[in-house]
C-alpha cells in the first residue's frame, strides 16, 4: 500500500485521533466511576455506623454492653451480609467484632482501627475511609465513649470497575477498528473517481488528446475538477493541433518555391560560360537549397506520420532480411570510414507493418551509428525475438551520448552538439522520424548510451501473429 496516498494518510490520522479520544474518554469514565461507586458505598457505611451509634450506644446504659452485641447481630447480621462491624470503647477494648464473611474477602480481626488519631476528640464525628489494605471500605462514627466502624468488602466495587475496564479494553479497539475500516471504505469510495480521473488523464495526455474525461454530474468538487481538466485538455489539443497544422502548412507552402528556386539555380549552374567564382557561389547556394528542401521534406513526412497517414501498407516481412539487405546497400558508407558493420540476425523474425517505413528506420539508425562512430569502429545490428516482440538493436562503439541529452534524443531539431552535427549534415530530424514511424507502427524505440562507450538504439515491435 502506498503510505503517501491520500486515503492512507486520511485514515491513519483519523484512527490516531479516534484512539486518542477513546483512551481519554475511557480513562475519565473509569476515574469518575470509581470515585462515584466508592463514595456511594462509603456513604452507606457511614449512615449505618451512625444508625448503630444512635440507637444502640444511646441505650447502652439501660441494656448493658452484652445486649448491644446481640442487637447488632440481630439487626445487621453482619456475617450473613458480609459486613464488617466493630465497636470499640475509648480504652481500646473491642466490644463487638463481626465474624468472617462468607466470601472470605477480609479477616475482621486483621483490619486496623480506622481513624484512631481522631478518637480522643470530643463529640461525634464521622469518617469515611478506604482502608490501606484495600479490601474494605469503612465508615466510622465515634462518640465520647464508643467508636462504631462499619465496612464492606471492596470486591463488588472492584469487580464492577474491572468489568467496565474489560468492556473498554475490548470495546475500544473494536470501535476504532470498525470506525477505521468504515472510514477506509468511505475514503476509498470518495477517492475512487479521483483515481479514475488520474488514469484517464494520463492515458489522454499520452495518446489521444481528442478524448475527454468522463464527467460525473455529482455537483461536488470532483465534477468541477474533471470539468476544468477537460477544459485544459481542450486547450492543449487546440494548441497541439494548431502547431501541427502550422508545421504541415508551412512545409507544404515552402515546397513549391524551393522547387522553383532549385530548378532555376540548377539551369544557371549548368551554363558553361559562367566564371568559376559564380559557379562556386551557385553551387553553395544549391547546397543550401538542398538542405532546406531536406528539412521541409522531413517536416512534411513527420506531419503526415502525426496525422496518421502512415500506415498505408501492412505486410508481413522478415525483419532480419530487411536489415541485412539495407546494411549491404549502405556498406560503402561504413567501408569509407573503415567501420565494420556486423549483422547478427535471428532467422524468421516476422513482423507486420509498412516495409519501406521500417527500412527508413533502419537506414536512419545505421546512418547515425556510422556517422558518430570514429574511423575503425564497430557497428552491430542485432535482430532477435524477445517474447512476443521482435527486437532490433543498433549498437556502436562510437562517441556515445551525454546523459543529459538522452531524454531529448528523439525530439525534433535536437542535436547533441550543434557544431559537430552541422558539419556532418542533418537537421536533427532523423531520429524524430524514426520515433514517429515506430509510433505509427506500434513499435517502441529507446536509446541507452555511455559517453565514450557507444550507444545502443533499440526498436521493439510485436511479432506478426500466427507465425
Amino acid at each position: 500500500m502506498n503510505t503517501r496516498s491520500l486515503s492512507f494518510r486520511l485514515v491513519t490520522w483519523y484512527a490516531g485521533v479516534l484512539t486518542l479520544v477513546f483512551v481519554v474518554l475511557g480513562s475519565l469514565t473509569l476515574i469518575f466511576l470509581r470515585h462515584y461507586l466508592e463514595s456511594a458505598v462509603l456513604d452507606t457505611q457511614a449512615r449505618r455506623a451512625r444508625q448503630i451509634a444512635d440507637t444502640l450506644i444511646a441505650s447502652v446504659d439501660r441494656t448493658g454492653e452484652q445486649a448491644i452485641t446481640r442487637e447488632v447481630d440481630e439487626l445487621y447480621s453482619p456475617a450473613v451480609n458480609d459486613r464488617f462491624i466493630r465497636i470499640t470503647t475509648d480504652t481500646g477494648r473491642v466490644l463487638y467484632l463481626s465474624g468472617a464473611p462468607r466470601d472470605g474477602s477480609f479477616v475482621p480481626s486483621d483490619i486496623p482501627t480506622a481513624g484512631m488519631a481522631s478518637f480522643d476528640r470530643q463529640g461525634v464525628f464521622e469518617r469515611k475511609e478506604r482502608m490501606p489494605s484495600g479490601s474494605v471500605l469503612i465508615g466510622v462514627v465515634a462518640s465520647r465513649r464508643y467508636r462504631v466502624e462499619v465496612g464492606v468488602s471492596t470486591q463488588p466495587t472492584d469487580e464492577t470497575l474491572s468489568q467496565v475496564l474489560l468492556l473498554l479494553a475490548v470495546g475500544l479497539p473494536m470501535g476504532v477498528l470498525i470506525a477505521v475500516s468504515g472510514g477506509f471504505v468511505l475514503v476509498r469510495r470518495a477517492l475512487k473517481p479521483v483515481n479514475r480521473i488520474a488514469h484517464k488523464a494520463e492515458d489522454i495526455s499520452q495518446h489521444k488528446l481528442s478524448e475527454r474525461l468522463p464527467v460525473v454530474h455529482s455537483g461536488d468538487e470532483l465534477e468541477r475538477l474533471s470539468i476544468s481538466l477537460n477544459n485544459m485538455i481542450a486547450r492543449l489539443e487546440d494548441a497541439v493541433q494548431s502547431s501541427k497544422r502550422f508545421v504541415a502548412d508551412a512545409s507544404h507552402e515552402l515546397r513549391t518555391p524551393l522547387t522553383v528556386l532549385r530548378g532555376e539555380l540548377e539551369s544557371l549552374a549548368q551554363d558553361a560560360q559562367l566564371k568559376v567564382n559564380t559557379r562556386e557561389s551557385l553551387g553553395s547556394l544549391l547546397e543550401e537549397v538542398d538542405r532546406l528542401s531536406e528539412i521541409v521534406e522531413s517536416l512534411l513526412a513527420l506531419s503526415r506520420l502525426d496525422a496518421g497517414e502512415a500506415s498505408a501498407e501492412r505486410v508481413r516481412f522478415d525483419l532480419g532480411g530487411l536489415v541485412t539487405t539495407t546494411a549491404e546497400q549502405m556498406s560503402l558508407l561504413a567501408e569509407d570510414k573503415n567501420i565494420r558493420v556486423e549483422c547478427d540476425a535471428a532467422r524468421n523474425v516476422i513482423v507486420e507493418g509498412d516495409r519501406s517505413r521500417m527500412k527508413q528506420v533502419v537506414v536512419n539508425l545505421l546512418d547515425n551509428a556510422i556517422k558518430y562512430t570514429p574511423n575503425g569502429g564497430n557497428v552491430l545490428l542485432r535482430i532477435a525475438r524477445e517474447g512476443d516482440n521482435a527486437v532490433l538493436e543498433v549498437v556502436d562503439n562510437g562517441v556515445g551520448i551525454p546523459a543529459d541529452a538522452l531524454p531529448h534524443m528523439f525530439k525534433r531539431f535536437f542535436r547533441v552538439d550543434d557544431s559537430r552535427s552541422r558539419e556532418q549534415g542533418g537537421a536533427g530530424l532523423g531520429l524524430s522520424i524514426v520515433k514517429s514511424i515506430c509510433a505509427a507502427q506500434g513499435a517502441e524505440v529507446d536509446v541507452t548510451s555511455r559517453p565514450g562507450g557507444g550507444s545502443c538504439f533499440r526498436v521493439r515491435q510485436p511479432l506478426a501473429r500466427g507465425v
Partner: protein
Amino acid sequence: MLRVGDLEVDRLSQHVKRAGRKIELTPKEYALLEYLAANPGRVFSRTMIIEHVWDQSFEGLTNIVDVYVRHLRSKVDDPFPTKLIRTVRGVGYGLGESTDA
C-alpha cells in the same frame, strides 16, 4: 550497350570496359554507372540518383551518393588520363561532357 567516350557498359552481361580494359564493379556501383551512362552529359541530382539506384528510404542521406561516386571514380576514372565523371557542385553528377557545352 552504352558508350560514353572510351567507356563501354554492357547492359545485358553488366560488364564494364574502359579502353578495352575490364573494370570490376559492385552491383550498386554498376547501377549508379549505368544510370549516369544512359544519359551522357546530363547532370543528375543526388535525390534522383538515390531514388533510382537505392530507394526512397535513403532520401536525406545524400552523402551515400558522394561516397559511391568517389568509389566509382577510383575505379573508372583514376587509372585513366581523361576523367569522365563530372561533379557539378550543388547540382549533382554526370558522365561525359555537358550537353549544354
